[in-house]
């Protein structure tokens, strides 16, 4: 657990951070967010004492960080930054090994740990260990940066806009990957960003700062549902409802759906269909082939004529998709009700527009 109480940083006349109180539970993914210059990086760096607080107290697991030697403290805290800061004269392996080396781990243990971390971050050790930073792409370099921060298995990670310099596609894939890593490792993370979407996607708690002060500190859903003031409302943007949908999963909202197999024929379909609902056409294995509406059944010669066919890989929704993506798919295909399918396209149920609106 990290707790900041009354933490202040003064630069001459300006107060970069003003009497900040913030308490971060172990295993929590806390995102610090706010406009440029609001004191996010300053706050972060006071936790590993790259910057010394002017006033106030910071404790880690109940111990005042001032009681440690700064170097000792920093070796116990992972640190990753936007510019990555890989050492260009060292191989990827040596870069990742920096903190274990400082901690005087033996060589075999370091080697084993480096391989483990490269694999954790989806970098093949055989390919990447001996590369130099100049031979890596931006995304690869940042993966190595994260691996390096994790090297000595610190309980706490400080990350200052680690994905800020990456293109949107790479950023998103790294965010996803890092979330997977975090689910596995359960670190206590303090993560700075000024991208609200990144905050919403990653955080278990968001701390919104302005002018060196904490404005709101709450879970993402709560911030979207009840922003503390106008500043927060403006900061999260006009599409806060959509952002909220992005936090919710399809899983708990979809219902069982009625379906029919091709060989069952037109008569069975007419018997099964209910006014105001669709029927999903599937093959023998249950893979969705299309949909049948009550209107299309009237006057149809056979089942095929009554069916509007669809490709479940494009138009299907997965159980762990979020509602924003589901909504997007539905708008794209003009569905009031969309099929929920598994990886193989097999029908699991259906999600209706009204279920999303009520969520």
């Amino acid at each position, binding site marked *: 657990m990290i707790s900041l109480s009354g933490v202040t940083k003064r630069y001459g006349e300006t107060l970069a951070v003003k009497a900040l109180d913030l308490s971060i539970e172990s295993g929590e993914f806390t995102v610090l967010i706010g406009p440029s210059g609001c004191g996010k990086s300053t706050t972060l760096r006071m936790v*590993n004492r*790259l910057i010394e607080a002017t006033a106030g107290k910071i404790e880690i697991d109940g111990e005042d960080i001032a009681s440690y030697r*700064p*170097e*000792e*403290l*920093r*070796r*116990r805290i992972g*640190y990753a*930054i*936007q*510019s*990555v*800061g*890989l*050492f*260009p*004269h060292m191989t990827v392996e040596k870069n990742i090994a*920096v*903190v274990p080396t*400082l901690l005087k781990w033996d060589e075999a243990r370091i080697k084993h740990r480096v391989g483990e971390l490269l694999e954790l971050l989806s970098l093949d050790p055989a390919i990447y260990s001996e590369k*130099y930073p*100049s031979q890596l792409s931006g995304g690869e370099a940042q993966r190595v*940066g994260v691996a*390096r921060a994790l090297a000595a298995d610190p309980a706490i990670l*400080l990350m200052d806009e680690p994905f800020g310099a990456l293109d949107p596609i790479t950023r998103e894939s790294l965010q996803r990957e890092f979330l997977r890593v975090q689910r596995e490792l359960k670190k206590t993370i303090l993560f700075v960003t000024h991208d609200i979407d990144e905050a919403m996607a990653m955080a278990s708690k968001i701390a919104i700062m302005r002018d060196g002060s904490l404005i709101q500190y709450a879970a993402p859903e709560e911030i979207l549902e009840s922003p503390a003031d106008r500043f927060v409302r403006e900061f999260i943007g006009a599409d806060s409802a959509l952002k909220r949908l992005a936090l919710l999963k399809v899983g708990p909202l979809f219902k069982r759906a009625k379906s029919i197999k091709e060989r069952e024929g037109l008569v069975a379909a007419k018997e099964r269909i209910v006014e105001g609902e669709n029927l999903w056409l599937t093959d023998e294995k249950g893979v969705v082939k299309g949909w049948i509406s009550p209107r299309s059944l009237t006057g149809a010669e056979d089942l095929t004529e009554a069916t509007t066919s669809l490709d479940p890989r494009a138009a299907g929704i997965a159980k762990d998709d979020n509602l924003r993506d589901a909504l997007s798919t539905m708008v794209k295909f003009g569905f009031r009700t969309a099929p929920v399918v598994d990886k193989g396209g097999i029908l699991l149920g259906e999600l209706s527009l009204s279920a999303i609106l009520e969520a």
Partner: protein
Amino acid sequence: MVFDNAAKRRALKALLLLLPLFALLTLSTSLWESAFGPLFPRLEQLVYPLASFPLLVGEHLLLVGLSSGAAILIGITLGILVTRPWGRDLLPAASSLASMGQTFPPVAVLALAVPVVGFGFAPTFIALFLYGLLPILANTISGMESLDDGILEAARGMGMTRSQCLFRVELPLAAPVILAGVRISTVINTGTAALGATIGAGGLGKPIIAGLIGDNPAYILEGAILVALLAIIIDTILGMVSVARVEGV
């Protein structure tokens, strides 16, 4: 990092040629006589007679070695000190000194040193030392100052002490620039050391001065060729060291 093995091989090949040539010219007087005989038929003395070439080369190397050695030691140390947080106040003074000093001709330094310490080895040593110090200081400062802030922040943030940061990160990264300064400084000193002969410091400048005074172009050429060869050899060796550094780090 560039792995420039080709450059190293070229340098090695050049040395295999230059070193025997230099040894031959230093050790054999008959070679000079047979070369200069037809060139200067009216000269009575074809080879500088007052000291043997090996002795002169030795004096020259001692002068350059001591002054450049001191310049390297002090220059790099000063450069490191003024780029530390607590030495930063001196940085502007040090960098303007380093860049200004290089516009100052070495002869002027010699002329200024003589009244202070007299003739001979000492003033030449002082002049060469001061003159050699400046490019090393300048390059150490610029090598240290050009380091990426993110790299230094990462080094500190991961828990390196100031000295670990200096020896494991800053110096290895600044090394190519620092070594370039060492190379320039030492090569210039090798040539400039010949001026020491004017105030009695010995070395390969002696035949040059004697030739100028006694109107003997053979002496001048002998001194000049040996100095030039020595400078090229030193340059090649130091060039190889910096290539090796770049690879090794």
